[in-house]
């Protein structure tokens, strides 16, 4: 038996992802976003999170999936990593589960089109259900954003 890990489960399209609970500050409904000019297209802008200005990125855009218009179920998951606070727009967030760290496998080379380095691993939840565990510091890696920006120019 490995250690118990509490994970927030959210969905992008048909796939389910997980972020450790202790990295998540709060989960919010969609709120008005102020556009910030001259940033990567997946950076949607900033929101007012109870007096703190927090940048928001569309996780679909970040993973180069097609972006969709937000729905009733869309949520902003605000995570705190390495003194950065960033909100992720996801299609829905509706579960907190406990998983055993032993059930997390190393990611295969390519999973659902997302580069493997964003992934911490794949957790098998049984009944064929798979949970993609995100490597947050890689998702928020700014060097890569700069490279992306240069590609776009």
């Amino acid at each position: 038996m490995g250690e118990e890990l509490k994970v927030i489960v959210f969905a992008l399209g048909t796939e389910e992802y997980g972020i450790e609970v202790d990295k998540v500050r709060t989960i919010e409904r969609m709120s008005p976003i102020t556009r910030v000019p001259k940033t990567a297209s997946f950076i949607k802008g900033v929101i007012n999170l109870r007096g703190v200005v927090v940048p928001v990125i569309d996780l679909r855009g970040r993973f180069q999936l097609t972006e969709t218009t937000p729905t009733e179920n869309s949520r902003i998951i605000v995570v705190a990593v390495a003194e950065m606070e960033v909100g992720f727009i996801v299609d829905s967030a509706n579960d907190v589960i406990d998983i055993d760290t032993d059930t997390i496998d190393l990611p295969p080379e390519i999973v659902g089109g997302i580069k493997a380095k964003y992934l911490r691993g794949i957790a098998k939840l049984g009944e064929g259900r798979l949970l993609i565990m995100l490597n947050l510091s890689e998702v928020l890696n700014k060097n890569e954003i700069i490279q992306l920006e240069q590609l776009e120019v």
Partner: protein
Amino acid sequence: MDMNAYLSMFIDESNDHLQSLNENLLQLENEPEDLSIVQSIFRSAHTLKGMSATMGFEDLAALTHEMENVLDLVRNGKLIMDSFIFDTLFKGLDALEAMVQDIVGGGTGKADVTAIVASLQQILKSDYSPAKAGQADTAEPASATGAATDSGSVLLDEFQASILLQSIEAGVQAYHIKVTIRDSCLLKAVRAYMVFEVLEKNGEVIKSDPSVQDIEQDKFDFTFSVFIISGTAQEELQNQILNISEIEDAAVTALDEESLSMLSAAPAAAAAEAIEASAAAVEPPADKPTIVPAKEAAPARAQTSPAPAANVSRTIRVDIDRLDTLMNLFSELLIDRVRLEQLSSEIKRTDLTETVEHMARVSSDLQSIVLKLRMVPVDSVFNRFPRMIRDLAKSLDKKIDLVITGADTELDRTVIDEIGDPLVHLLRNSVDHGLETVEERIAAGKPEVGTIYLRAYHSGNHVFIEVEEDGRGINQEKVLKTAIKNGVVTEEQAKQLTSDEINHLIFAPGFSTADKISDISGRGVGLDVVKSKITSLGGNVTLESAFGKGSKFSVQLPLTLSIISAMLIKLGSEKYAIPLSSIVETGIIRKEQIKNIHGNRMIEFRSSIIPLVSLSKVLESPDFNDEEEDETEIVVVRKGEKWAAVTVDEFIGQSEIVLKSLGKYLTNIEAISGATILGDGYVALIIDPNALIK
């Protein structure tokens, strides 16, 4: 006892004492005759020694002790200060500072100070024999020789007697105090220390028996006696001492000229009787000379000694985090206030409007207080400069006078924290490149002592700090040559530069005019770093210079970095804020007024042609394009001397906004300096006008 609880207090106070040591030593260097300065230096050193010994920082205490010994000789007129002694004392101070810094960083405050201690002892020894030979007939004071004296021989040397005599003549009372500590007392040194603290608050201790050192080290029985000059009345002094617990008795005797002459002349053995006799002689008419009215005594004391009690300011130390929290909470309140104002103007109910207006007034008072709380006088940065200039002048063999004015000018703490390094660099630059050597100055017909003026003053919403020197000024030919050589400008460009622009070339990255690279300043990384640092603080630095006459660097800084006045504007559906400090004017122009010059859109404004910048283009606005409008609103902004007109969709109005950062994820966004939260809860971005003007 848990020392950690006292550590931060110790660090704060040590820094204060080190600073005052520094200042006083510098003052003493200018006025070596003024023994009252030596007294206050001695006091600071002494307190520092006591504190560090209590806290268990032995090296710190040991070094201070050696310095104190030297100072004691000076204080008693047995040693004349010379430059070697000054240098050694300054070196000692540096070592002390380094140790305190080590303690701040969590270290043990240990350091190898043997070299400094050795030279201090050398000073002591070289003085020791001549002092003894020359003043053989005067009794050696116990504190100077370090030898324990037997308690009966309280005797004043000439110097101490003359101080007492002078103060009596000046109308300040001199007392002899005999303190007895209860024999049940376990920590009599501590009680004695408390007595000294009371005494030093009330006046100046001239002599104590046994010596202060011995008392501190517990080398005394339960009594000790002290000579003190003080403006406090006899009974009051006695009461204050008796108020300290475990003090058995305090016999305060007023001294007059007669008893003093007896004391200083009397042979050692008769000293005890002399005191008794003088006490007897003085006591009957005690009412007259001893009870000096407080009003008279106070000014007199101010003349004779820089009384430590005079500057008891009513302050408390507050953790800076708490102030930051207060500031944040207040910012939230400000946002709600704006929201309430909007609501009340929509609802239009008189009593609601009145209440909201009142709240607005109260909150703007509150705002100014909260902002003031964070204000710190620039002195906290300036105070280390005299010492720095002195050292630089010595090492470069120049003669420099630093004149500081406006040190009480206040600035936000966040600005203060950042401004130190740029100022150090500007000053070093002035000393190294600006001022000439003594020979050069004499050859140029200038006074051999160069002067650096460091000024701070308020002007509008800004604070100006100027560094001016009467040195050689900027050699524009040389600047141009170097700039071309280092590729800062091309020869073509150089021909078109105004003299002001040439001067400002020295701020360009990769520029250095110094022929030699010195360790003082000038690796060509200096002035451009200064400039970018100051710009990042929302300030500006300019330079005026006349060749052969000197240069003046002028640093402009915002008063505060947290709440600013701004103009809110609209671009289609988006709202932005432009800091009011950089707005010159707002207006409306018609399409016909826009001229195309070299493919750039320009307009005429106050009889000059300025560029027109399309904000919607710069910010890639999704739903507004100013080119479609016949009439368009403009905001004229400035960056230094340069102006530009910025087209906007609509003005919303002026508002106090709270600066918020965009966080660490979004950094260096072009033309955006931050964000603010509007009354309706939406985030508006703050435009950086400096980025709009190229």
